[in-house]
């Protein structure tokens, strides 16, 4: 279907609306969906028709989804996806060639499907990796089909067009890499240094950030712009604290002092109960979880910093407040902590800004981690 792919006010072509109506998707729902998606991706309304057009084309990219030292939490997050839903993703949007949790085939037939896809779609498929990769003792701590995670991830991600690391384990090593890291767990980027990896941390990641990343890729043919930790700006560009619905209470000095007290019931700031929002870059307050239903701070529990590298070590104890400072100095302190963490992580991960077919010549290539002044 040929359509004009931009329009100044974002109105959608009649032909597309009719096509979706024929599929049982009402025009209002579809317009609402495209608008929400554009908002998640921080795109101007003029690009809405382009998003819609991308969803029209039958260009399902092959996807190979690998799970190693994970808990299947990111897969479960995918099952909760709402825009598009998981059924739309696996039937209409993507061609999921391998995903152990949902695929019908098992054993030799499953392995065969994986390697056939690697061969057939070399350099064209998207690899999605869930869970960290144990590098200790020659990789014996995680084997699939008789081979080690380390061998598999190198073969699969090494031949992919791009790799999406879903969740904190795949992005940064996550819980298996928490001290003392018994299995020598590493991130996907560490396991396959040459691969183009985009990190979608969170524990688990927010399904909306995954679907938005995929739709971005389908729309523009490349991955979204990322920061120094390879996290897309649209989802990790701001601190929780910056967008928190309880921010006004923080500014007014109104804090919950104990779980269940008056301030806690009235939605006051959770900073004193250990909230890590001031040091965590994630879009939870704006996107929320489970179809926008809620997120931890809204439900009365502090943020635990689950999108940050090594949060199991840097953010614990979870119920201890950030370094206490008199008055309202937490901002400066949190900035320092945030920068310190980012710098330490950047060191641990080595150089970033991996050259990529998708980002070459991209104006956003120059975007490296910049904290807002």
């Amino acid at each position, binding site marked *: 279907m040929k359509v004009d792919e931009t329009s100044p006010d974002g109105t959608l072509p009649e032909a597309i609306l009719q096509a979706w109506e024929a599929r049982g998707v009402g025009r209002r729902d579809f317009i609402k969906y495209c608008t929400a998606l554009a908002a998640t991706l921080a795109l101007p309304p003029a690009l809405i028709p382009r998003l819609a057009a991308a969803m029209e084309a*039958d260009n399902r990219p092959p996807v190979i989804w690998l799970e190693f030292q994970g808990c*299947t*939490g*990111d897969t*479960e*997050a995918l*099952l*909760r996806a*709402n825009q598009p*839903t*998981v059924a739309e993703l*696996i*039937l209409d949007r993507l061609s999921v060639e391998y995903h152990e*949790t*949902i*695929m*019908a085939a*098992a*054993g*030799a*037939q*499953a392995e065969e*499907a994986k390697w056939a896809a690697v061969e057939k779609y070399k350099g064209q498929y998207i690899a999605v990796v869930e869970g960290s990769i*144990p590098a200790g003792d*020659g*990789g*014996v*701590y*995680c*084997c*699939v*089909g*008789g*081979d080690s995670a380390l*061998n598999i991830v190198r073969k699969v991600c090494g031949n992919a067009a791009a790799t999406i690391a879903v969740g904190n384990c795949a992005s940064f090593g*996550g*819980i298996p890499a*928490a001290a003392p*890291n*018994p*299995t020598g767990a590493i991130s996907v980027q560490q396991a396959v240094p040459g691969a183009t990896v985009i990190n979608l941390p969170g*524990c*688990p990641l927010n399904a909306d950030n995954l679907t938005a990343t995929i739709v971005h890729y389908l729309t523009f043919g490349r991955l979204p712009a990322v920061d120094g930790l390879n996290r897309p700006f649209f989802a990790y560009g701001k601190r929780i604290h910056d967008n928190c619905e309880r921010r006004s209470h923080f500014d007014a000095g109104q804090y919950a002092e104990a*779980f*269940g007290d008056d301030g806690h*019931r*009235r939605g006051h700031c959770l900073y004193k109960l250990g909230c890590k929002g001031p040091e965590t870059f994630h879009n939870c307050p704006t996107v929320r*979880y*489970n179809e926008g*239903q*809620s*997120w*931890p701070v809204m*439900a*009365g*529990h502090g943020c635990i910093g689950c999108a940050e590298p090594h949060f199991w070590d840097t953010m*614990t*104890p979870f*119920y201890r*407040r950030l370094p206490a400072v008199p008055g309202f100095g937490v901002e400066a302190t949190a900035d320092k902590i945030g920068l310190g963490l980012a710098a330490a992580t950047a060191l641990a991960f080595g150089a970033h800004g991996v050259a990529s077919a998708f980002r070459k010549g991209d104006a956003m290539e120059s975007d490296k981690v910049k904290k807002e002044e």
Partner: protein
Amino acid sequence: MSKKIVVDPVTRIEGHLRIEAQVEGGKIVNAWSSSTAFRGIETILKGRDPRDAHHFTQRFCGVCTTVHSIASIRCVEDALKIQIPDNARLIRNLIMAIQSVQDHVIHFYHLHALDWVDITSALKADPAATARLAQSISEWPQASATYFKTNQERIAAFVGTGRLGPFANGYWGHSAYRLPAEANLMAVAHYLEALEWQKDIIRIHAILGSKNPHPQTFLVGGMAIPVDPDSQNAINADKLALIGKLLKKARVFVEQVYIPDLLAVASFYKEWAGIGGGVGNFLTYGDFPMDNSGSLESNYFPRGVILGRDLANVMPMDEEKITEYVTHSWYSYSGGDGKGLHPYDGETSHNYTGPRPPYDFLDTDDKYSWVKAPRYMDQPMEVGPLARMVVAYARGHKEVQETVNFVLGKLGVGPEALFSTLGRTAARGIETLLLAQKSELWLQQLTDNMGRGILAVHNGERWDPATWPKESRGFGYHEAPRGALGHWIRIENGAIANFQAVVPSTWNAGPRDPMGQMGPYEAALIGTPVADPGKPLEILRTIHSFDPCLACAVHVLDGRGTEMVQVKVL
């Protein structure tokens, strides 16, 4: 002629499982269950704040995403003798119940169904005949010929692309598939329906728990989600109404879709009521407290142990009789691998002796799994929905007996049919129905409490580590969707000195013990027919009937006497 076959990876489960089986004369004569991944989270827990433990242990598993939080919090509460407020009990019950309901439905449709349902056959079905079939077994309104035609066209369009994605390479057309085309189409339509349904009803976890997977309102001493009819930042009338609406939606789907489908599919596979029985010993801790007394007798599902399928003799469960063996697991014990250790006295020492990857076969005479072999009174035990239903049935639980008898009556089989692959799958459906129905009562009780001005959700008397004894230990239990879950903790000087979990899939997926006794998966496979060793669909049927969750099952415990890091709590 004997042939050894390997299924690795076993798909449509949580985690990494490998099955090796010996087939002779079209039947399995020997089997080995191996877990092939290990993370070591208990080692990571050492020295940390016990109030943080539930965040860590929750990451054992993202499927049964609430269960380790519950068990972990309960073991700390047991150690520190904390009584939780009634509202916290009710909120936890609601979270636990909807976890089971959602998890079991996903298991039936998305993890288990394709072992019984042939998607390709659904394309040959007559939508009008499918509609008649659906209307004959259920009141569910989505049952028109148009509805089934739309679903069929959607699948046909997908198949027409020639790119089958997750359905590629399945065992379609296998001789062991028995359903008529119309039953296949009905099941496939409900497969898609259930995908939509599950993400909707799990919003209850978001309302009460902030998000799912990995809800984040659990606390040692209660819950972090406030309740207050006069606040917009707490559970108020509005939120109660939404939970009520979602609970009803959950119950109606279970009553009108899941259970009728289960009965319809099962009626074509009755020979599986005589296959896959396994060890015949059952253990359940019991759960879902109906009041806040803390008494075991207040649990909706009762506690008990049954040995040798003897329904006339339910024994009390005593956690001190649990031990774990590592004779065939990749660990070593300082006192020798032939001896079993109680979880409080466990030891850490992973010791991989298996083949170097890539490999073709494991050395099944020696160590062959990352899962240990838990035993009760030195007996292997099956845990899970079947254990819960069998113990409740044997103890005269009225609602369980009525529902079990109804299902068995519909299928025209006796109670002995419970001890099978089919019985295990039916038991899961039975308890889903009971929990979906019971949840509405817990919501009503929470509403009544709030109406009376009872708003406490957290008991903070022992929140400050300064109030704790120098040393304590506790046992926390929970009946997770996949079965009996136990966490054991030792707390010293405000920090975790030792943490140990014995989880459902450890009980079920474990290897042999030094006495040579098989674990439940292994035992259940013996005698299973295998029509085509190159396409071992029948192995999947029995293994999937246990709903494996391997990430949970693998763990290490911490020995006493290791040097502890002192945690400073401000």
